[in-house]
């Protein structure tokens, strides 16, 4: 076979032993009754599916990720459109400016919203100056809304980039052709530009929706008692309650949800293509 196979073996060995094998160990733990010992059981999964609270939290996590994705799309699409069609000079600078925060600490960026969102914070002061709110406290901090705002802030930059890439590829001649056939700007957008930018929209949605399902830091910092999601349930099992086997089962369920939603979204992309 390949003489140079030793070149790739360290990386492959590392990924197999420390990424693939641990996932199987996680599945193994999820079927044990007590730590590394005990007996084989499906009780951990039964616990999850029989208790309303966990199903509710799962639904809440999915719903929250969905909101984050939709809001990100509503922000990102116009932004990418503006960057492709209106802004001429300094496009690369603007792209850089959008992507730089994406690579900085998520933890710090989540925390940075505290200054703005808390009662008596800058947002409250600003809104009051504009007479948009009364004298009561803002009441945004430690709510699901605060978590969603921060998550949009953290995840949307990538979506701008993927949509930008697909919009850039739209052939200007098609747009001209549509215009010359007397289509209005809205029709041209709906029938030409939007369908052609669908791959960018879908990969952007995957890049926002999938990581949103697995968050736990943002809800912890900004969500208070409303900030319980699947991710925080898993964290609790490992750090507070020491229910490792149940935690492993919930993690496996989360992983299944993630793989399922990736499959559905990319299937959607293929159908459109």
């Amino acid at each position, binding site marked *: 076979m390949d003489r140079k196979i030793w070149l790739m073996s360290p990386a492959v060995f590392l990924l197999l032993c420390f990424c693939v094998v641990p996932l199987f160990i996680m599945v193994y733990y999820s079927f044990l009754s007590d730590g590394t010992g005990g007996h084989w059981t499906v009780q951990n999964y039964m616990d999850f599916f029989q208790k309303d609270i966990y199903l509710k939290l799962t639904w809440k996590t999915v719903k929250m990720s969905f909101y984050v994705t939709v809001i990100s799309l509503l922000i990102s699409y116009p932004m990418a459109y503006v960057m492709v069609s209106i802004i001429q000079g300094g496009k690369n600078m603007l792209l850089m400016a959008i992507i730089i925060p994406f690579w900085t600490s998520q933890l710090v960026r989540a*925390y940075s919203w505290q200054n703005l969102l808390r009662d008596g914070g800058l947002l409250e002061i600003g809104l009051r100056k504009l007479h948009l709110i009364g004298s009561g406290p803002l009441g945004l901090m430690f709510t699901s809304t605060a978590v969603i705002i921060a998550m949009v802030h953290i995840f949307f930059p990538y979506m701008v980039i993927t949509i930008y890439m697909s919009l850039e590829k739209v052939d200007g001649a098609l747009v001209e052709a549509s215009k010359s056939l007397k289509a209005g700007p809205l029709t041209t957008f709906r029938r030409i530009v939007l369908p052609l930018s669908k791959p960018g929209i879908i990969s952007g949605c995957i890049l926002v929706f999938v990581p949103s399902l697995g968050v736990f830091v943002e809800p912890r910092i900004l969500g208070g008692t409303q900030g319980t999601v699947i991710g925080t349930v898993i964290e609790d099992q490992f750090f507070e309650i020491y229910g490792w086997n149940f935690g492993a089962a919930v993690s496996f369920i989360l992983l299944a949800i993630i793989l399922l939603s990736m499959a559905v979204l990319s299937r959607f992309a293929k159908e459109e293509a």
Partner: protein
Amino acid sequence: MLKKGIGWTYAALVMLFLYAPILVLMAMSFNASKYNALPFEFSMRWYRELAGNDKLIDATLTSVYIAAGTAVICVVLATMLMLWAVRTNSKLKRWIDSLVILPLTIPWLILGLSLLLLVSAAGIDKNFMVLLIGHVVVSLPYAVLVIKARLQSMDLTINEASASLGANEWTTVRRITLPLLFPAMLAGGFLAFVISFDNFILSYFLIPGGSSTLPIEIYSSIKFGFTPEINAVSTVMLTATTLLIVLIATIMRSSLKFFLK
């Protein structure tokens, strides 16, 4: 004209949303008040206290060591892997491509805890070796993608030219491929450094008792009570990583594509 105005205004608003929280955090690190209270009063107090906070400095050093180790290992592994990938037409290649991006699709929360379970199944204590390996696993895909982007934009016939001039394979790699690849290796290394330095979740699961990294310190002081130096240390952290990212982008200007998976 009107269209242009609306477009620029919209772009400016998005930038405001993106940067306002970060800039406010940075400004607050210079605010004298202990509770981020307004009105703003300029002070360097938190930076002075930061300089005297041994716990935070120790944690920062730990983070730097781990990130540096991660960067070096990632560059070596990624370069070797790509030198193989570029020369082979093995059927394995497709599998290995998916294996390399696997850590990007699994949430770090799940990767972290599955490594913790690995440690417990092996019956050993949490240690820095496993922590470092965890950081390498999550940073490796990025280093690979950067180096791959460079290799794809490189003219590979130059390797054949070298071979036809009688250079053996090792000489070609050493004198032609590696020097051309060097900027990407540098950029990939810096990127791996940044990913590891910022990484909270894996460290949180795998850190040995009694030790700590900078993100862990930041998280615990946010969670368990307010430490005003956190604004200052976050500002330092954001500035440092931003500078590194700008540096990476400058090195890789020719293929900005690498930012995209």
